């Protein structure tokens, strides 16, 4: 178990390193001129040269890479080229926004998907057909379109939720929830479509298993058969899909943050990538991959707990 954890964490660190290295060299591939971008059109050549020196861009790429890598190992991700603020601070400020959004969306997805998937699998009939139909359509609607419609209806027209902005949890939990409700719903709908379909499928598979009939032959209450035994056996497949959705939600959040004017990691990533703010881009990549690695690790632990046949070794 410990060995398993250590190995997975080791693999995760390797993954973070490979991803960051990949992105580092990607950003140096084209001959862009960050100093010019930072200083704007009016700057003179000597100012550009000075800035280039200040950023250390006059040094060989490998040397810059080594510098970044060694300071990153010490936990220093450098400072943004454009705002001069430490990357760790910029990322830490944006993280709660994105994390709130993605976590709310994933919780919503899990809860709604399980209910819908189980009901569809068990009830069948028109309800099942409806769920499948709605899932396919819901999957097909771009999330930003959903977000925009939600904003127009619930924020601009009805004024129930804010149309934009994020309130930190610590400031006012009620307003925090209100500020992430619409974005989380917009983000979750596509994921719900996918996960509910998967849950329905694996529930149906499980319900066809011999042991379900045997459980029923023992006269156990239906609720126990369905929610304790069947669901637990259907859970690994759903969880796996859910964890894949988590990664997809991180991507989706970038778009949704824009619709709702949330200054999260996505907004920051878009701006940083657009400007060529290499330290900030790298910081975001590192954080995103760390989150993904952590989620996958949690998934493995959960799968191990759900399915005793999977040995964590």
């Amino acid at each position: 178990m410990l060995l398993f954890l250590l190995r997975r964490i080791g693999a995760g660190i390797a993954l973070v390193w490979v991803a960051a290295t990949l992105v580092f060299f990607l950003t140096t591939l084209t001959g862009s001129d960050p100093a010019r971008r930072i200083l704007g059109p009016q700057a003179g050549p000597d100012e550009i040269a000075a800035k280039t020196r200040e950023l250390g861009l006059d040094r060989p790429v490998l040397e810059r890479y080594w510098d970044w890598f060694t300071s990153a190992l010490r936990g220093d991700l450098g400072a943004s080229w454009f705002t001069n603020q430490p990357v760790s601070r910029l990322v830490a400020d944006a993280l709660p926004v994105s994390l709130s959004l993605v976590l709310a969306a994933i919780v919503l997805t899990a809860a709604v998907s399980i209910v819908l998937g189980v009901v569809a699998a068990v009830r069948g009939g028109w309800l099942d057909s409806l769920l499948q139909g709605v899932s396919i359509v819901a999957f097909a609607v771009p999330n930003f379109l959903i977000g925009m419609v939600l904003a127009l209806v619930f924020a601009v027209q009805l004024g129930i939720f804010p149309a934009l902005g994020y309130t930190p949890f610590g400031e006012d939990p009620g307003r925090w929830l209100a500020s992430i409700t619409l974005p989380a719903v917009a983000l979750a709908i596509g994921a719900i479509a996918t996960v509910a379909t998967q849950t329905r499928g694996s529930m149906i598979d499980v319900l066809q298993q011999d042991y379900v009939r045997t459980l029923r032959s023992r006269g156990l209450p239906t609720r126990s058969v369905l929610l304790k035994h069947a669901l637990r056996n259907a859970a690994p497949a759903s969880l796996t899909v859910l964890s894949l959705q988590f990664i997809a939600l991180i991507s989706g959040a970038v778009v949704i943050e824009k619709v709702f004017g949330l200054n999260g990691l996505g907004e920051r990533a878009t701006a940083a990538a657009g400007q060529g703010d290499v330290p900030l881009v790298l910081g975001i990549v590192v954080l995103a991959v760390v989150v993904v690695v952590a989620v996958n690790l949690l998934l493995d632990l959960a799968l191990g707990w759900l399915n005793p046949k999977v040995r964590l070794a």
Partner: protein
Amino acid sequence: MSVLSDSGPAGPAPVDAVASPPRQGAVRRLLRSPVAVVALVWVLLVALLAALAPLLTSASPTASQITNALAPMGGANLLGTDGIGRDVLAQLLYGARTSIVGGVIVVVVSLALGLPAGIVAGYYRGRFDAVASWIANLLMALPAIIVLLVVLAQFGRSTELGMAVFGVIIAPGVFRLVRASVLAVREELFVDAARVSGLSDGRIMRRHVLPVVIAPTVIQASQLLGIAIVIQAGLEFLGLGSPNQASWGGMLSDAFQNIYAEPRLLLFPGLAIVLTVTAFSLLGNALRDALGVGGRMPRVRRRATVVAAPDSDVPAPVVSEPPGDALLAVQDLRVSYPKGDGSVSEVVRGVSLALRRGEVLGLVGESGSGKSQTAFAVLGLLPPTARTSAERLTFDGTDLQRLSPAERNRLRGRRIGYIPQEPMSNLVPSFRIGSQLTEPMRHHLGLSRAEARRRALDLLARVGIQDPGRVFDSYPHEISGGMAQRVLIAGAVSCDPELLIADEPTTALDVTVQAEVLDLLRSLVAERDLGVVLVTHDFGVVADLCDTVAVMQEGRIVEEAPAGRLFDAPEHEYTRMLLSSTLENSPSRQDLPPAVPDPDEPEPLPLSSSGGPR
């Protein structure tokens, strides 16, 4: 309404060995589904409109006429113009081009990478597999959007580049699918056989591997097209699409700017995206059904075993009025399933049985003779689509047909026990044996956790398990099949039932274990005065255990007699046929080979080791 309704064939249908159906006819099967046809027509229509865009409209999708901004529908601009005076229809048509081309790029790139890599990794395994799988895992852990943002910021905004990069990011999905398919087929015998017979790898690939890979790949490609269009719209919304190129995502983004003035602008690109992506999804699903891959068995598939044979062919069953003290009395039981075409297939056709306490009734017949269906009708565990009727179906004087599902559930486990056929698949894999044993006892008998545990340990010891404590704490996969069957028997008798229904309780076991389990059953019957309905195809088991035997064929009982008499003087031709084939093939895991015996068959051999007639 049953709660466990419509969950497919929950009945004891033996798992159909759905061999991959012949591919010819797949297209025809696809075209039989109206949904698939509509989806296909829509996709083709979009592709056609995209290809013919220049012929269909003279307007340029990108030329803007500020003076003609937000023109209403009709007139020169059939669908009006957008916020800076571009023709909406032209944008829609040229946007379809962008979407289709983008989708194709994703599919081509991801297949180009994933397909060969998946085949090689799955077929040769080894180092390449390890490296490729590692790369796939790496790609899957990268948040796609960040890679896209970085690449597009570096190399300039371009829908095509974005889609190509997305193709790379999504390629692990193709890789994994293909690899899994190839791995599966690789393990199959025919590949090994093909190898042994000296075929080259290339020929094995062509003849055996590729055919298995094509179907799932085609399905996935259809779904990828849909995903690509959604992702592409997102990129265009973020302003990362090609400049000066009409696109549905870009149209949506522009429509947002004018959302207050002209909300209708949202409608066309929104509909175009939703309908097209939906069409690709539906097409993917329809393809899955048509190709019969990776899916569950189609819902309607039932065992249409016995389709009404003329009554006159079958001799009248030996039916006597059940005695008054019967524990179980069944008269004229009929079970039928509706078929897809509206007709009904009857699988149990007027069965009558009677059973006293302490009596073991063997229900014998070939696979599909309706014996298991009869047993499940008694248990009330037929799939919800089954229609059951009986003149009489009483347990200890109680009319089972008049009980509510909940009342019937209270009988099950408590007064009627059930021993299934396959020990391993009948224990819940994710719960310990102990909890599976104690849960019914706590539920039915109201025992405390400790009492239930003590009783379960006693039971485990009683069914002959050496180390009850260890088994109690084990997961099903940690014990042997024989032990699992003992556990299931312990479970069946845990609440002191009066009636035991055993469905081929020894079929899945080794011969020596079989004998032990039969001994156990016999002693339990004697000890607890149980009535037992023993469903089997194995006359050895019948001879070992049964007092009375009923032989079933095509949903009817053709002969019923005390065990001894049946063996000595089988009356019915079918019984004789069964007897002779059993004696010739010693008990096997397989059901009997159906159909008429070979006339050239040798004389019956002496009885098998599972015991002779008493």
